Structures are given as C-alpha cells and as structure tokens.
C-alpha cells in the first residue's frame, strides 16, 4: 500500500515496522529511539525516500491550479485593461482560460474513468494520500463541468456589474482544485486541505461584489461560520486519530476491523464532529444557517457554482469518511444522517415557502436538495452511493442553469431579486421562461427530468434498505417542494402587472445611487427573512449574454437528457466503494 509510513504515525505498534523500514538508514543524523519511537533528523529509507507518484491522478489538480497560476501570471504581466472579447459569443480572456481549464478537467476525468478500470483494490496515488478510482473520476468530471459552466455565466455578469478581472477566476479554479482534492482525499488531512482550499476561495468569491454591501456581508458571515465549521471538523479528525491511530481512511478501517474498540467515546465524538463539519459545507439542517444569507448576498453566478461545487465536495468527503473509513460504525452514524436528512428535506421545503426573495428561496431549496442526497447516503449501501453521485451530478446542472437565469433577470446591480422579478418572464423572453420551467420542474422532481430520476434513485436506495419512513418523508418533502417551484413557474407565466411606480432598473445611476431601489433590493440582507413587497417586474428587454445562453441551453438539455435516458445512471452504477459491504 505504501512504501513509507508517515512519521506522523504515532501508534507504538507501527514503530517496529517503521524501524525495519529504516533499518539500513545511512544518512547522518537520523536516529530512532527504539523505546519511544521518536525519530530525529532526516531519514532516508534504504538509500532514498521512494514516494510513488501517479501523475495520472494528479492531472486534474495540476490543470486547475496551473490555470489559476497562468491567469495570475498573465494578469500580473499584461497591461491593465479589461480583456473582454470583441465577439459576443466568446467570453472574455480570463473566463475563456477558466472554461478551457474546466473542459480539460472534464476530458481528463473521462480519461481517468477509462484508466482506473474495475479492479477490486482501491488504487492509491501520491504516497497513500489520494485515491484514484471511479468515484474520483466521476467527481472530477462533475467539478470540471461546474467550472466550465460557472466561468461562462460569470463572464456576462461580471462585465455587466463592471467587476471583470482575473481574480474571481483564479479563485474559481482554486476552488475547483480544492473540491477535486476533497473527492480524491484518502485521509482526513488531505480532505481538510481540500476543504480549506475550496472554502477560502468561496469566502472571497462571496464577498467579491465590492459595490454591494450585501456581498461583503455574505462573505464575512460565510467566513466566520465556515471557520467555526472547519474547527469542528479538524477537532473531529483529531479525535478519530486519537481513537484509531491514523487519519488515513484505509488504516482507520483496518484498525477498526481488527480491533474491538471497547471505549468508543472518543471515536464517536470524532465522527460526530466530522459529520457536523461536512454537513455545514453541504448546508444540511441545522448547519444551514449561513446558506440563505450567503446565497442572497453573494454574486449570483458564484452562488450557482458554489451550490453545485461546495455541496458535491462536502458529499464526496462524507461518502469517503462514512462509507470507507467508518462503515463499522454505520449503526451509529446512520441515525444521525437520518435526522439531518429529514430535517433538511422538511425544513428546507417549508422555509422556502415563506420566502419572497428568489435567491433566498433557492437557498432553502438547496438545503432541501441536500436532504435528498442525505437520504441516499443514509442506507449506507452501494445503491446509495450510486444515488448520491447521480443526484449530485444532475443537481450541478440544474442549479447552475437556474442561477444563470436568475443572474439575467435580476438586472444590473442585482436590483431585482424579489420573486416578482420573474413575473411575466414568459412574455418578455419565452425561451428563458421555458428553460427556467424545465430547470424548476427538474428540481421539483417531475418525471422526464433528471431530477425525477435522482429523487427516484435516492428514495429507492432508502426503501431497499427498509427505510420506509425516510422514503415517505422524501416523497412528502417533494410534494411541498413542488409547490415552491411551481409558484415561481406560475409567476413567470402570469401577465406582468402594469406598474405605477416605474423603476427603470437599467439606469445605472439609479442602481448604484443607494436610493430607494437599493434599499429595497438589499432590504433582506442585513440579515433577516424580511417579507418584501412584490413589485412589478422591470419592463425592459432582457439581454442574455451568449455564453450564459449557451450554459442555460446545456443545462436544460442535460436535465432532459439525463431524465429520459440512462447512460449517466449506468455510469453512476460503476462507482463502488469496495471496502464496504
């Protein structure tokens, strides 16, 4: 498995193995105290440290980090001016580089998918720090796609808001790389590293809209609460290490299988803390409090990207930790996941009902969607893993497409985020309304969309494990959620009301003047679920940037494609975590 044991291996039991490894240590200054196991100085094993590096596994991260560096270096060396593209169909320079890196990641994910094969062993790369298996490849494809879509919708938005620059794309690329690392991590340390790389990028992206106070507020809140959650996570990791002597999933499970843990308090506490830390990332109730405020305040395209990537990254971590490292404790963690799942599905759906802000509504909807993924995770079966991966992949497209449309209809300066901004959208832009309809129906789980299949597979996974109550709650939540989405859909097809107080949101002077408009638009921000007065929608014509339109088309097409045919579902079936069951 590994040719060199990490010096961090503190358990006395492993010292002897280590000592034999290092028996022929010739380097000067390297001494091993046979009694305490303490190692001092630089040690080389049998002449040299041999660290097996499987570069194929590293390519996605190399591509993403590399692209981030390229953007940074280019922006530092090239003259300072906006690099918007002269052709409407082509996004600006930075967005193009990001999208290309994303495409490269997707392609490499596909290559990996073929490369990893179906052998029963869990292949490791880079020492034993990374996994290189079907699940990794699947998530790499997913994050790559999210990067492409996120970059394309960000371009039009940032140009419109006058914020275009290399920074958000650097952050986005780093964020994707962090998410990839989370999916690849073979131990809690790597997972934490990925989690932090991803989170810190997201904090900065949330706060990126410097002209909106709400954006800064969102970033700050996300940062403070996120740090809190990270602290919880790393404390949990430390406790698990204390209980099992390792932070590597495979070492943890082999320890738990071969040793009966009599006093399991430390292990259980560590598990609970790790679950809580990751549940924060996926915005599961009751760790969801940040989501509405952040979704509402952060720049809209970033929210779509974040909803997809942060959730998927968090779930990748949860899948690995619970199914690979702690399957022996399944009877302990399954009830916790049960509670998180039901609370998320029900509270998410119910709270979304009460929202009048579109982005806030979608935030609660994403909470409820996280609940469905948890329903798939709860049974702890291979079918559940399939369901989780499939659900996340389809959700990526639905949520990014939805936020792409929200970003267009909200108008300049994010002036209109209230529900009535979509009112009469069908009359103003039938294609946009039809696309939004498909994406909303997809999230509601209407048949012939990918959302339906997703809900079907997660609930089927629960039912197959005998979790009838959970399945029932899932269906109940879907019924409530359908109401939320259909309410938005209905608004789109209602006639736009003739407005008495005409507010021209296209006028830049108004949008940033901090006048009446601003105060209404940001009323919910200072932080509560205020009921906004529904106003008539802007009457002006919608301008949809071509890349954004392309993203919407891709997302809609994928939502229908994955809903009526099953290649993606078949792909998800190949994802197994062989150490469990």
């Amino acid at each position, binding site marked *: 498995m590994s040719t060199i044991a990490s010096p961090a291996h503190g358990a006395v039991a492993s010292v002897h193995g280590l000592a034999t490894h290092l028996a022929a240590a010739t380097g000067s200054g390297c001494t091993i105290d046979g009694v305490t196991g303490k190692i001092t100085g630089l040690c080389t094993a049998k002449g040299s440290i041999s660290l097996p590096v499987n570069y194929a596994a590293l390519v996605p991260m190399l591509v993403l980090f590399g692209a981030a560096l390229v953007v940074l270096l280019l922006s530092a060396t090239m003259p300072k001016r906006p690099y918007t593209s002269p052709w409407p169909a082509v996004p600006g320079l930075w967005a193009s580089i990001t999208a290309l890196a994303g495409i490269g990641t997707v392609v490499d994910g596909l290559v990996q998918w073929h490369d990893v094969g179906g052998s029963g062993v869990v292949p490791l790369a880079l020492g034993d720090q990374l996994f290189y298996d079907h699940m990794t490849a699947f998530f790499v494809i997913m994050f790559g796609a999210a990067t492409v879509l996120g970059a394309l919708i960000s371009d039009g938005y940032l140009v419109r808001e006058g914020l275009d620059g290399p920074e958000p794309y650097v952050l986005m690329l780093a964020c994707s790389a962090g998410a990839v690392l989370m999916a690849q991590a073979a131990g809690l340390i790597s997972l934490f590293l990925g989690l932090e790389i991803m989170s810190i990028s997201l904090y900065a992206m949330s706060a990126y809209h410097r002209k909106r106070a709400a954006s800064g507020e969102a970033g700050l809140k996300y940062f403070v609460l996120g740090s*809190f959650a990270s602290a*919880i996570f790393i404390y949990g990791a430390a406790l698990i290490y204390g209980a099992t002597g390792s932070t590597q999933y495979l070492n943890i499970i082999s320890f738990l299988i071969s040793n009966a843990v009599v006093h399991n308090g430390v292990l259980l506490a560590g598990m609970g803390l790790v679950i809580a830390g990751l549940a924060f990332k996926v915005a599961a109730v009751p760790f969801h409090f940040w989501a509405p405020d952040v979704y509402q305040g952060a720049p809209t395209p970033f929210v779509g990207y974040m909803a997809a990537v942060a959730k998927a990254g968090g779930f990748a971590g949860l899948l690995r930790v619970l199914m690979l490292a702690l399957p022996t404790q399944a009877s302990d963690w399954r009830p916790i996941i049960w509670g998180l799942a039901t609370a998320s599905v029900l509270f998410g759906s119910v*709270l979304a009902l009460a929202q009048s802000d579109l982005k806030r509504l979608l935030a609660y909807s994403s909470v409820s969607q996280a609940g469905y993924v948890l329903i798939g995770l709860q049974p702890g079966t291979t079918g559940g893993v399939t369901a989780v991966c499939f659900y996340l992949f389809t959700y990526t497209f639905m949520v990014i497409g939805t936020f792409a449309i929200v970003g267009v209809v909200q108008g300049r300066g994010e002036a209109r985020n209230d529900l009535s901004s979509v009112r009469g959208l069908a009359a103003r832009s039938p294609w946009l309304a039809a696309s939004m309809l498909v994406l909303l129906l997809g999230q509601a789980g209407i048949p012939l969309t990918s959302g339906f299949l997703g809900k079907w597979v997660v609930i089927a996974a629960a039912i197959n494990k005998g979790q009838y109550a959970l399945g029932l709650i899932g269906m109940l939540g879907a019924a409530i959620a359908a109401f939320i989405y259909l309410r938005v859909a209905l608004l789109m097809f209602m006639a736009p009301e003739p407005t008495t107080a005409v507010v021209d949101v296209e006028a830049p002077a108004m949008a940033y003047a901090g006048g009446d408009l601003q105060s209404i638009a940001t009323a919910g921000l200072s932080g509560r679920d205020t009921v906004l007065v529904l106003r008539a929608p802007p009457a002006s014509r919608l301008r949809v940037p071509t890349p954004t339109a392309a993203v919407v088309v891709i997302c809609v097409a994928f939502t229908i494609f994955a809903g009526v045919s099953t290649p993606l579902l078949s792909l998800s079936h190949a994802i197994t975590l062989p150490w469990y069951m």
Partner: protein
Amino acid sequence: MVNAAYAIVALPLLGFLVNLVWGRRLGEPVAGWVGTFAAGGSFVATVIVWVTELGKPAMDRANDLTIFTWFPVGGLHANFGLLIDPLSMTMALFVTGVSTLIHLYSIGYMHRDPGFDRFFVYLNLFLFSMIVLVLGDNFLFSFLGWEGVGFCSYGLVGFWFQREVAAVAAKKAFVTNRVGDMGFLLAMFLMFAHFGSLNYSQVLGTLVHGHATGLLGGAPGAIAGTTATAITLLLFVGAVGKSAQIPLYIWLPDAMEGPTPISALIHAATMVTAGVYLMARAAPLLHYAHATSWVIAIVGTASAFVAATIACAQDDIKKALAYSTISQLGYMFLAVGAGDYADGLFHMLTHAFFKALLFLGAGAVIHAMANNQDMKWMGSLRKYLPITSTTFAVGWLAISGIPPFAGFWSKDAVLSAAWQMNKGLWAVGVLTAGLTAYYMSRQFALVFMGRARWQEARPAQVLAAADQVAGPDSATERAATGHPSTGHAGGHEAVGPGLPAPSHGEAHPADPVWTMYVPLIVLAVAAVLGGGINFPAWHLDFLSSFLKPLFPHATVLAVSTGTKWFLSLLTTAVALTGLLLGLSIWRTAEHPALQPAFLQRAWRFDDLVAAFVSGPARAGASVMAFVMDRRVVDGVVNGTASFLGLSARVVRKVQNGYLRSYALGIGTGLVIILAYLTFRIGG
C-alpha cells in the same frame, strides 16, 4: 429497415414540432403541406418496413426496437420501444395511409380558418400519438399514446372552442374516456403484479426465431383463468371508453362538434378503433378468459344494434354517421369476442376506408351547403356534386354490405364467426346489417336524391341563421334558436371553415377543390377493392395469413361451404331489403312515424344520465363538495398550509441575520448529535 421504423414515429413528431414552433409564420397553406408530408412520409416509411417484414418467414416477423430505457430501477424496466409485428404493421399501415389522405383533405377543408396552423399541430400530434399507441412495445408506452390521442381528440373536438357546444362536447369526451382509462390503468397494475412487467413480449409472449413464446406459445399454467379474466375485463373497460361502446358511447355523437376531417380521422377511422386493437393485442390473454370473450361479444352486438336503431332517426348528417360508427365498432368487437381477431381487424380496415370516405363526403356536402348539417334541408345534390355523390354512393353500398364492395366481405366474415359462436348474436348481427343498409339508404336518399329542399323557403329563423357568415358568434346564436326539425338541442350546424354562405339562388353548391376530392376518390377505390385484402377463397386471405402467427388460438371457422353460401345470401338479401326500403321510403323527407322521439333521443340514454347527474349524483356531489371537501379535505390542506406557514414564521425568528444566532444554531445541532452519540458509547 431499422431507420425506416424510427421514421414512422419521428416524422409526425417532426411535423408537429415544426408547426408548433413556426406554424404561425408558415401560415396557410404551407403549414398544412408540412403536416401532410410528415404524414405521407410516415406512410412511406411504414410501407418500407412492411415490405421488409414480408420478406421474412412468417414466424419471424416480430422485431422489438428499444429506443431507450426510461428507468431501469429495481424491478421496473420502463422501455420505450417499437414492436414491429404483423398486428402493429397492419394498424400502422392504415393509420398512416388514411391519415395522409385526411391531412390532404384538411388543407382544403380548413381553408381560411383562423386556426389553420393550430389544426395541423394537433393533427400531427394525433398521428404521432396514434403511432405510439399501435407501435409501442409495452402497455405503458401504448398507454402514453392512448392518452395522447385522447388529448388530441379533446383539443380537436373543442377546436372551435369559442362555441360552447364544442367546448362542452370536448369536455364530455374527455371525462367519459377517463372512466375507461381507469380500467386500463388498473389492468396495467394487475399485469405488473402478475407478470412483473408491462412488455408485450413478457406479458403476452412474442415470436422468437420462428417460435412463439409465453402465452402466445400456449405456455401451460402460465396464468390462472380468473387473473386473465380480471385483466382482460379491465382492459375492455378501457376499450369500451375509447371505442364508444355501450355504456360509454355517449361522447362520440357529441364529438361531431369537431371539424369534419377530425370526425373522419379520429372518430371513425383510427382513434376509436384503438379499443379493438387493444383487445386484439391481448388475444393471448383472452384465450384464457372465456367470460371476457362473451362480455365483449355481447357488448359489441348490443352496441351494434342499439346504435343502428338510433342512426335510423337522426337528421344531422354527421350524427347519423357517428351512430353508424358505434354500430360498426360493435361488429368488430363481436368478431374479437368470437375469437376471430383477423376478421375483426379486416372489418376495421374496410370500415376505415368507407367510413372515412362517408365522413369526408359529408364534409364536402356540409361545405357545399354552407355549413348546414340537417339532411332534411338537403336533397337532389347528386346533380350539383357529381364527384361527391358518386364516391359517397360507393361508401353507402360498401357499408350496406352489398357485394362486391369491401364492407360485404368483412361483414360477412364477422357474421360467420358470430354464427359459429352463438346463433342469437348472429341473428342480431344480421338484423343490424339490414338496419345499416336502411339508414344509409335513408341518408343517401335525403342528401342526394329527391327534391332540392334547400332551394325552398325555410322557416325564417333558420334562414336567418344559415345566411349569416359562419363564425363563433352566429353559432351561439343558432345554438340558442335551436332547430325546428330535430328534437336535439341546437348546434347542429358546424361553424365551418369560415366560408361565407352563398345566398340562395345565386351560387349553386359545387364539388370541392382537388385537395378535397382526391382523397375521396382514393378512398372510394379502396372501399370498392378493399375486400381483396382478405378474400375468403382461393388462398387469397392475405390479412388472415399475415396475422395468423399472432393469433394461434383464434377460432377456426368450421362453417361448411354450403352454410357459408346460405349465410352470405341471406345477409345480402336482408341488406338489399333494407336498402330498397330506405330508398323508397325516404324519397320524401317527412316520416315522423319512422323517427320516434325515443330513437331520435338515442334511447333516452343521455336523458337518463342527465337525470342521474342532476339528481342523485348532484346530491352526492354536493355532499362531497360542501361537506367532505370543504370541511375535511380543505380543512386538512388549509390546516397543513397554515401550520407550515406558522412554523416557517417561527423558524424565521432564528434566521435573524446575526452571526451569533447562527453559530448558536450550529452549536445546538452539534450538541444534539453529540448527546445522541453519548447513548451509543459502548454499544
């Protein structure tokens, strides 16, 4: 071959999409031609597939082409696929063929209608759904088509939805069909419970490498008689609704409010035969369900007879044809019930030819008569409409069962099967054949012979109504004034395609444009020669031998040649009697004694339904609506809603924007998890 099979389905869908998106821009007549070519292409594709199939050995003619698997989860495999076998090919051939002709006809008929493009959108969608219904390789996919044609029927009956009668008729058709659909759904549940699948190949068996599998191959003990009876009876409930048999036939006459090409296509030739198709498809199951076969035969015979008597007393040219359709569908069910599936389908084919012909002819007449549908005000039209009257005469003789027209051969085959099953059913069938000849002759005499009553003075109100330019407004007016010569509530005159009514004496009625009469001629030829597809002698029974592999359990006719001749001669004699009676009596238009109100009002069945609906049913509905629904159901729904609203408001208090509250919330969640885990320690 494979590509052609997909094209059968894809072309109408393409036509539908093109007309849906660009129809308004294409306008008239391009939208119509797009639709017609889509249908025609589909027909050509069907012919190609059919010819390819003919090249194979008889027992190998079954292909299952899976388009995609919808969700292969658990035990449920919902495949969307096409089943190419003799039965589906027979259906697809005549559906696409007749449909192409009616598309063409509609270009002329719907001329200058404001909804021209919308009409072809529906028409293509209908064709697509109908093809899905007949080519689907499982009950679920077919059911989608089944619902699709139902929806299109709804949209097309109510095509002139500005008229209340049309809208009400559409609703009636839709609601009545729901009753039948419930039967279909329950049958599917039962089938899935018993077979674990809805695929035809797994439920009914199929042909594989020259061998019949499953029930089709007569797998012993495959299914208990009671299960088969239950499934087939429920399927038959669905068939009764779709094919307008007793007691669910009431929607079909009202459906004549739709444009006449619709009546020809959907309510005569294709959609209403879906029930017969379904029962023929379920033939391997019927083999184990004798009780169902009897129910089918009896319901079919009763519908044939009752509808024929009603048709004798109708004055509306389309309503008479509608009741005639119900009657002829009854014959088809009689054949299916008697176990002679091939001849049931044979009659379906010939009926599609001559009934489509009659309806299209009626449409041409209605066109010429400025949207008047009352036969009492027609007459002598053969002098003015030579093509229409000649082709109509062919249809008349064909449906009357006069040799050598198509209807004779198929009706004769059906009656032979009935003779073998039960002499009583046969007797009613023969009597119905006589009635058929009678009412069709009556119709022919009233419309094309006698005096030209439309030139004479008419009651002022009728004239006033008829002379108005057709349009939604005048229609409601006419519906309100009613019509003196019929007992029905008004609304007989279709608001036609928006032609201005010619003033009397100035313009004579004339034959329609070529797009309308070419289909008439083609169908007339088919109605003459149609008997040739299943000629009962010299091994010329192409249809029966083509279908034979799929109906291995079909009743073998054991009627001697002598008896056969006797039966044929007797039936022909009865038909001729009816024909001559009809012609001689209805030289003049007024014979109130022969049109008793009881028959005019369709055995008062609608009145009965209305009395029930307005009496006990309404009372029951009131209880449901005002007590059950308002107090209980609404109470629960509203209660849930207000509970949700309340809890949402409470929880929102926590979501107050302060970081400390959020951190507290997260901390609380963590504490709950850890508290729970303390109970698990040591466990």
